[in-house]
């Protein structure tokens, strides 16, 4: 499904800020894999997602989705395969446009934008039923501007937008990190349901070890631009936080800054 081969990325080459963010990432995802990604700050988690999404070109290596080599494709062209939810709730939606307008943009992800009217009656009914499933009451506010919604509502809407047209790959970049704990749980449960219901292949970056263990069938741990741990199947199910911390110390040689990971 998704295949990364020896992907390298260094930022600000030749300056004092030079930072090797990805140092040879090899990764293969099977159809239906729900993978959580953890690691300390600066480990390269978000960078890996951005490399897959095509936010910038990589220095070395190749990326293919569903057998298609997308390494040379710009971000907007890769979007036909990829649904995304960002860390910042403001990023995924157009604030001064209505809820249904945002959904209409997302329903046509990857399609050519024609001169047809942007929203039809049947689509509106479709949006209504899909929004109702979120259980946030958004279905009665179809024409409300998205700027009026709370962060949690916006993330839930972005999640729906990312999956409205079934993506080959769903990228979730710490999408619950900016939310209060209760809302974060709601959004993560919603994510879990949507991914399992639609049998999506998903990569979810998180700072929260408990969530990383609770969700998905596979777990990746990153450090210094490399994937240092890859656990799946039965082993993943039995995993506990203490195991992860121990493995991290053993593999990276340093203690994980635990307060943010443990307490969140």
């Amino acid at each position, binding site marked *: 499904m998704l295949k990364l081969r020896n992907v390298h990325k260094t930022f600000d080459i030749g300056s004092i800020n030079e930072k090797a963010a990805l140092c040879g990432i090899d990764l293969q995802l099977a159809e239906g894999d729900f993978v959580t990604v953890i690691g300390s700050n600066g480990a390269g988690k978000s960078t890996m997602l951005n490399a897959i*999404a095509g936010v910038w070109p990589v220095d070395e290596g190749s990326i293919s989705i569903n057998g298609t080599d997308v390494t040379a494709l710009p*971000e*907007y*062209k890769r*979007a*036909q395969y*990829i649904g*995304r939810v*960002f860390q910042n709730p*403001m*990023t*995924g*939606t*157009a*604030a*001064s*446009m209505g809820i249904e*307008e945002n959904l*209409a*943009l*997302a329903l*046509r*992800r*990857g*399609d050519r*934008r*024609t*001169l*047809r*009217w*942007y929203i039809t009656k049947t689509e509106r009914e479709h949006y209504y039923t899909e929004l109702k499933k979120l259980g946030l009451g958004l279905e009665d506010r179809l024409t409300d501007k998205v700027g009026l919604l709370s962060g949690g509502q916006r993330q839930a809407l972005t999640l729906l*937008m990312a999956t409205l047209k079934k993506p080959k790959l769903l990228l979730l970049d710490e999408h619950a990190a900016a939310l209060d704990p209760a809302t974060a749980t709601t959004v993560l449960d919603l994510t879990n349901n949507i991914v399992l219901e639609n049998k999506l292949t998903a990569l979810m970056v998180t700072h929260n070890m408990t969530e990383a263990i609770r969700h998905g069938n596979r777990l990746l741990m990153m450090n210094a631009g490399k994937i240092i741990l890859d656990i799946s199947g039965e082993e993943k199910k039995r995993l506990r936080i203490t195991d992860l911390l121990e493995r991290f110390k053993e593999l990276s040689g340093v203690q994980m800054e635990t307060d943010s990971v443990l307490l969140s």
Partner: protein
Amino acid sequence: MELIAYFLSLKPLNLLSALPGNIVQGIIWGIMALGVFITFRLLNFADLTVDGTFAAGGAVTVVLILAGIPAPIALAIATIVGLLGGLVTGFLHTILGIPDILAGILTQISFWSINLLVLDGANRAVNVDKYHLIVSLRNISSSIVTMLVFAAVLVSILYWYFGTEQGSAIRATGNNPQMVKAQGINIDFMKVLALGLSNCLVAFSGGLMSQFQGFADIKMGQGAIVIGLAAVIIGEVIGDALIGKYMNFYIKLVFVVLGGVIYYFVIGLVMWLRMPTDLLKLFTASVVAIFLAIPYLKAKTNNSFVFANKGGAQKNA
């Protein structure tokens, strides 16, 4: 005594008789303002190409009419020249990475030379007695009707276009480009498209203006962007005050055109008061500054800083 003499010398009838002409010119500026609205408000792009494409629209129209080409066709070609101007700014910005304001200025300044070449001098007159013109200040009543029809048709077309998949992609591009890319939309293409469309309207308006006033002048586009902004902002502030939350996109476009008319009415009033015409641009700039400042100052006086300050002052007193 002098003041009384000044007021006595003003003739209210003159103001009234100038009104129809001002309405025509106001609608022409209003159509240009629709173009400015597309870039400034929808695309969030400060496009200064306008000054160049407005004069180019006027120059091309007049020169073609003088060459014997029927006015509607001349106007259509002028509109295409405007489109090309917008595309150039778009390419400078998207392909060559030049910042938006600078890209517009470069195209605008290029048009100064191009327009001089087209006009073969600083200005060219076109006589309504010799040629069949679409609008003319010699025939104001029919010009008003023509302009009202043009404005209605253009507002309707824009309303439709920005409700299509493509138009809503342009609106979203101005709103949140990052989200738009994630939805598989090429934001560079959308920007170029919107700039082209906007400058079509601007050149179209320039072509009408040159016919109405009976000549094209190299300087006719000077400050056009400021007049366009004035119309957009006046229309928004007044529309907001009159319609408030019942505002929709169609009415918003109508108010942009009305903004042009109101602007031109105010200019007519100022000229009637015999303010030196040299000061007109200063006056226009002041109007834009005031209307731009209103929403900001309103927000600034209605917040807790101010309330708390006032409360504190009372306690001390």
